[in-house]
């Protein structure tokens, strides 16, 4: 598996830590899924989330703090610096939101913040649309991981623009990529992995499921299945039917 800023992950599943019925359910979900990374939002917990942060550190997985809910590069940079102190990691999932209703990322703010954060030694995981030009600019800024969205955050719509994701994947074969946001079902996660993405990141689909722990297990299996399938080099679809057992020589009765 590809490494993320020098870290090789045991599982291609990254899970968010918000919206679970309780921290106990969250912990059980992480265990059931085998997820290797926990994302955590700092924005609304400013200055008082220590008990919850300790629980996240206690999950025993890599912590990827994020700048969720930031609407400007400045806000995101401030949040990232705080996250580095709290979680003692250079990893930061950079999220600069550009639109309140769709929560789509602001490409300009994201690039501005990525440039500043990379210069400060952060290892930036930018949340982005599947735009190739933006991807190139982010790589130029120093990002060594990209996180294109599948669909708007929390929408559960899956991979909205398969063409865009496929071409993005092909354009940057050396850059580890995570499909982040919009994943609603394990099949979406498996799909992304089969397309050659290196990991998937989701939160709502597990946290808000009727049984988050069971859904977490399903996502863990699906992400792993997709990764295995990709490595196994799947057959190409073709128009002509090909029998899997020879027909020649069969008795004509």
């Amino acid at each position, binding site marked *: 598996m590809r490494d993320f800023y020098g870290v090789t992950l045991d599982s291609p599943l990254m899970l968010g830590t918000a919206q679970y019925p*309780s921290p*106990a*359910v969250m912990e059980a979900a992480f265990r059931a899924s085998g997820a290797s990374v926990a994302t955590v939002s700092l924005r*609304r*917990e400013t200055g*008082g*989330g220590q008990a919850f942060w300790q*629980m996240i550190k206690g999950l025993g997985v890599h912590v990827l703090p994020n700048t969720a809910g930031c609407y400007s590069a400045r806000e995101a940079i401030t949040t990232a610096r705080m996250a580095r102190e709290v979680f003692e990691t250079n990893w930061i999932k950079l999220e600069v939101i550009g639109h309140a209703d769709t929560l789509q990322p602001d490409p300009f703010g994201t690039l501005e913040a990525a440039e500043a954060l990379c210069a400060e030694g952060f290892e930036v995981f930018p949340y982005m649309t599947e735009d190739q030009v933006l991807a190139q600019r982010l790589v130029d800024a120093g990002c060594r991981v990209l996180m294109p969205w599948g669909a708007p955050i*929390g929408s559960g719509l899956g991979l909205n623009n398969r063409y865009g994701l496929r071409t993005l994947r092909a354009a940057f074969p050396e850059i580890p990529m995570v499909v982040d946001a919009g994943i609603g079902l394990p099949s979406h996660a498996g799909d992304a992995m089969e397309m050659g993405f290196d990991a998937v990141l989701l939160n709502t689909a597990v946290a808000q499921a009727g049984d988050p722990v069971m859904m977490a297990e399903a996502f863990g299996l699906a992400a792993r299945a997709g990764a295995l399938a990709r490595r196994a080099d799947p057959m190409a679809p073709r128009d002509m039917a090909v029998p899997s057992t020879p027909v020649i020589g069969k008795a004509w009765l």
Partner: protein
Amino acid sequence: MSDNSELSDITIIGAGVAGLWAAYALSERGITPRLIDRHGAPGAHGCSWWAGGMLAPFCEGATSEPAVIRHGQHAAADWAGVTDVAQKGSLVVTLARDRAELDRFARRTSDHARVSGDALAALEPDLAQQGREALYFATESHLSPRRALADLVAALARRGITVEQGEATPADIPGTVLDCRGLAADTPGLRGVRGEMVMLRTDDITLCRPVRLLHPRHPLYIVPRGDGVFMLGATQIESARRGPVTARALLELLSAAYALHPAFAEAAVIETGADLRPAFADHVPRVIRQGRVLHLNGLFRHGYLLAPALARQAADFIELGRKGDLFHDAD
């Protein structure tokens, strides 16, 4: 702990909803504990003051452990012996865009009926609108938390138990101690979960029962307090930061209320509040025995729903040595 000499030497620290109920449950069995709180009688210093007062075990069941539903079902009957309980059920609604959320909530809860049109109008005329569906939880109830606390204090006084004002920790006090101080108790595994609320007054809308608005981003409940007063709650933030309600929380709560009914836009904001809910990791409260100390804690957002059951289990242990499902041994 069923030795008679121990029964005469019991002290409860903390006079929030947990401590008051612990005292009441013991008094029901003829035991007269001391009750101490560093602030004296219940007030704005305690998180019980800021509660919604919904006794809604089935709605809470959507995101809670089964124990919450099981014990919560007895809360209305327990409270009815002490204070006025409005047994009018509760309603769950959505905005038109989020209709699918209602189906989902219906699947994940029980003891509800689907109402719309005239049936909804008969329950809450101000909420009925063309095409709106709601879930009606007929057996749920609500109460007015501050009146309920005062009524509990009065009921205890009639049984010779008064709230003494004074600083105390379990170490200072001999005999059996029930530590009901919430977050001040620093119980292992306990954390604070911030909640924020707003009180509005308006005569332009009437509600008879609590209404929950399911919303993908900003879920809200509104509890009518009577006389045109409505309590809007509540945010749930993983933070132990105290301090006043934030602008963001106010915006979210008020926007959601306005979306539910435009008349709320003209309401007077008469009070805002923010405090921390003491919670364990599974959001289920516990009676934890540690030597001669029983910790009653972790009521989370279910103070009024579960304090009677938690107190009953503490009293069962003290009187009979019986250990209920909320009981944990730290020793």
